[in-house]
């Protein structure tokens, strides 16, 4: 296998854009990534697109060539990948495999979702299909409900508190307020977060990520050729995708994400480093409890200590391991199919030192964790400065 580099990144703002359709959002991110990589559009040999529910959200299928051609990519293999909220993490993993294996040299991985054209109850129903519809969906479990049940059990077993959950929301909103591409650039207080409208107990509206439109893309190439194109590439130190049961009732312990643990283990082995070497991370905070569980499963803290880690400020910018300096899914927004590649873009922005007031002091090694559903897919990526 060859070493691989991320040559270029492209991201639209995340938000509710009544005047933008899925195709134009996707094409904008792809074009920006190709320009940033300083490669010719005609040099791109394959395209992988992450998208969760285009057919349900906007009634369009066959999305990979649909988006690719709008970005000027013609004739090449174009493939859509669906793995719930980890769709574009999976697109990145497959793009990486195709370059690392020697099949292609220049490949684009992207993600796109257009969610805001549907009303909230319909969005809720579409998202619930990332769980097991025959058991969870039939009982009336929404995605907030699944993570609420994880939160309840985590609180029961480890003493995690509402205040600790709220601390994650407060931190991520503080970060997102300074991210020009974030959906909700609003600072919130702990009191506000605690008094939020209930969504699924114990989660309030401030524990939940946003319903957003948006797209993100990256260009991958062999590391050995990266310097031919750009001096700003990042090195893929490790990337892996792992899986687990879709339904929570089939899991032994719902406070653990085995797919995150497995993907992280493989990544750390590939990179030859451990959790203590990670200098910043973008983790999948679809709900505040998910960030707490992720910091545990990635090995940043011991099991059960994720709430304490957040409440003590260890994951703030300037803390031991800054987590979600972009604002995370909570504040930056969560156009589900775009989230995985979006996280990778956000890590690269930090590695390049381009994060402005959100820039962390040490930024040589960053990690992205992209979760699908309630944990049935996880993609972990570790990137380093090249």
């Amino acid at each position, binding site marked *: 296998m060859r070493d691989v580099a991320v040559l270029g990144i492209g991201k639209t703002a995340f938000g509710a854009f009544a005047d933008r359709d899925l195709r134009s959002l996707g094409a904008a991110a792809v074009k920006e990534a190709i320009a940033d990589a300083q490669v010719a559009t005609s040099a791109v040999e394959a395209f992988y697109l992450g998208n969760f529910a285009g057919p349900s959200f906007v009634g369009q299928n066959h999305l990979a060539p649909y988006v690719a051609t709008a970005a000027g990519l013609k004739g090449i293999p174009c493939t859509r990948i669906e793995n719930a909220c980890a769709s574009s993490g999976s697109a990145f993993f497959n793009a990486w495999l195709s370059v690392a294996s020697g099949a292609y040299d220049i490949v684009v991985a992207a993600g796109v979702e257009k969610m805001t054209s549907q009303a909230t*109850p*319909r969005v809720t129903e579409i998202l619930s299909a990332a769980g097991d519809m025959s058991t969870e969906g*039939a009982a*009336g479990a*929404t995605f907030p409900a699944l993570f609420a049940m994880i939160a309840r059990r985590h609180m*029961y077993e480890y003493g995690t508190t509402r205040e600790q959950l709220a601390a994650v929301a407060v931190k991520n909103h503080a970060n997102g307020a300074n991210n020009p591409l974030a959906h909700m650039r609003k600072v919130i207080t702990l009191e506000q977060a605690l008094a939020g409208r209930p969504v*699924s107990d114990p989660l309030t509206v401030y524990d939940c990520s946003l319903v957003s439109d948006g797209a993100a893309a990256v260009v991958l190439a062999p590391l050995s050729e990266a310097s031919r194109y750009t001096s700003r590439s990042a090195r893929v130190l490790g990337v892996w995708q792992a899986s687990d049961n879709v339904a*929570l*009732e089939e899991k032994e312990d*719902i406070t653990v994400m085995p797919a995150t643990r497995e993907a992280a283990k493989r990544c750390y082995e590939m990179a030859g480093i451990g959790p203590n070497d990670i200098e910043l991370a973008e983790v999948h905070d679809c709900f505040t409890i998910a960030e707490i569980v992720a910091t545990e499963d990635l090995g940043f803290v011991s099991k059960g200590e994720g709430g304490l880690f957040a409440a003590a400020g260890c994951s703030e910018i300037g803390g031991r391991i800054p987590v979600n300096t972009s604002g995370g899914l909570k504040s930056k927004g969560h156009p589900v199919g775009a989230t995985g590649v979006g996280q990778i873009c956000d890590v690269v922005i930090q590695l390049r030192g381009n994060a402005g007031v959100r820039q962390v002091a040490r930024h040589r090694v960053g990690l992205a964790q992209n979760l699908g559903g309630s944990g049935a897919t996880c993609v972990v990526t570790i990137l380093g400065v090249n």
Partner: protein
Amino acid sequence: MNTRLPDGVVYTETVVHTPPEKYLQEAPYQIAIVNLAGLGRRTVRILGEYVKIGESVTFDSYRDNTPCYRRAGNTKFSDASNK
């Protein structure tokens, strides 16, 4: 399928305030994952009084294919079997 299920112990639960489209009229409602003796875990709807982790529940009925349970008296059981 539609046989009576054994009693269970609540492994985790939540009250849903923001339902999907098809259950819009029913919110708020409680769902739970319960440990059933010999049958592993099931995702169920709770009828009547809300329940907490570790509390005992008894089978009520099926709604379509979803088992519905109710709180079993006021007895609290040890949650040791949940772990």
